[in-house]
């Protein structure tokens, strides 16, 4: 279980996060949604241990957590399989074994036939799948995702979401996904947590009971509409007087 206890963060003169309490249970998918500049990326980086928070503490019982960033962040000078196997190489897994595992993952994520390609020879969607495969390769049980699909166009994004849902369910991996897209959060989360802008505070939390396969487009729009009728959520998303840049 990942437990964030009254996390607050001050960056320079500005308070970006305030009294955040959040838990992610094993196998659970939590979606953190908020408008641009509400500090949600900062919160994810704090959860990943990349940034030390100014206040509060983190308890992480997961065996291994990895991050999928907004951009693929692949090594441009390494081929697809070596990029997937990067985390395994860092762990000291022998080359033959790590490449075999990378190959299996590449095939599972629809990247067969492209094992020897360099990142720039792949499309944006494929690059992001390589990044996902790289995160899965180290056998993580918690995945932290920072708007991983925001650079993809609508069709590809939906495809990537389906892929992610399948991968998480098959492996029983917990996830904390940050997004600014309400429908994405509603599609991918067991639980949706809404953050308000500057400073980021949790203003609403909702469990989505409907099974993932029954969450069709009609449901997503209806649920997003219902969510936006909540005054706190509406205030976060619609009536922002003071626009804040991240």
């Amino acid at each position, binding site marked *: 279980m990942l437990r964030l206890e009254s996390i607050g963060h001050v960056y320079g003169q500005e308070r970006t996060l305030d009294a955040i309490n959040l838990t992610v249970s094993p196998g659970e998918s939590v979606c953190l949604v908020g408008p641009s500049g509400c500090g949600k990326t900062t919160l994810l980086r704090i959860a990943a241990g990349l940034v030390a928070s100014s206040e509060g503490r983190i308890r992480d019982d997961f065996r291994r957590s990895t991050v999928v960033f907004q951009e693929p*962040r692949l090594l441009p000078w390494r081929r697809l399989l070596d990029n997937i196997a990067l985390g395994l190489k860092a762990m000291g897994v022998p080359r033959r074994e790590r490449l075999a595992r990378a190959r299996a993952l590449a095939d599972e994520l629809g990247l067969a036939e492209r094992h020897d390609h360099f990142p720039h020879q792949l499309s944006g969607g494929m690059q992001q799948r390589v990044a996902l495969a790289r995160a899965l390769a180290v056998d993580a049980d918690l995945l932290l995702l920072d708007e991983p699909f925001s650079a993809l166009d609508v069709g590809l994004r939906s495809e990537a979401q389906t892929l992610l849902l399948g991968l998480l369910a098959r492996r029983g991996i917990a996830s904390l996904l940050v997004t600014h897209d309400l429908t994405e959060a509603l599609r991918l989360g067991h639980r949706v947590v809404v953050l308000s802008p500057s400073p980021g505070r949790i203003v609403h939390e909702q469990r989505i009971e409907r099974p993932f396969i029954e969450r069709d487009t009609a449901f997503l729009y209806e649920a997003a509409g219902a969510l936006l009728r909540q005054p706190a959520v509406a205030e976060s998303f619609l009536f922002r007087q003071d626009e804040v840049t991240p």
Partner: protein
Amino acid sequence: MKQSLPTRGVIAVLGWGGSLTGVLLFVALWEWGSQVYGSFLLPGPRDALGALGRLWREDAAAAVLATTWRAMSGFALAAVVGTALGVLAGLSRTLGRALGPVSTVLLGIPPIAWIVLAILWFGSGSLATVYTVMATTLPVSFAGAQMGAMTRDRRLQEMGEVFSVPPLMRLIDFHLPHIASYVFPALITALGVAWKVAVMAELFATEDGIGAGLALARVNLDTAAAMAWIVLVVALLLTAEHGLLRPLQRRMEPWRQAGRGGR
């Protein structure tokens, strides 16, 4: 993007043809100039070739070998030391601040001043030439490596942190390939400088080598021989760049190849 072999052959021939046109145009201009100014002031290409043949019979190969050896050993020393220092200076801010001005000062000292110093320190001979070559090319490779090490991608570093990449792997898989893409162009520049400075240093400091041959041509007022030596130096430079450094770069940076399209 994949082209058939004949297509690529035709493209290659056209490419070579284009380069050849430029060379032929230059030779034609040279010939014309020699006819206008007379073969004493500007011997034509044929005179130069004739002189080259004469020089070759008088053992120009030894001179070429001597110059090559001096230029390349000075260049190699500068490349190794300069790149190593440059990487360190780029990785450590403090070291960068300390070494940066030194590099600027070295870059500002004219090669001719280095030759004077080298002759004073080491006496006439090979060592003075090698030293001069090293002193003038070292700041170039240093600057390239430092720039490479300073422009590492922050986001890739963070990714490395997420996967707990150990220091040695971080150097080999993250830093060096990026730095290499800055070092190679710097080395190609340094190589050109190395030949020119080696010949110039030889003119003053040694009894053999291309520079000494040029000095002799000056004494004998043999312009054709001077031209022949110049042709030789240019040929050597092109050989070293396209026969050594560029292939090495292609080998070490296959990930750039695919992006270059034809070639």
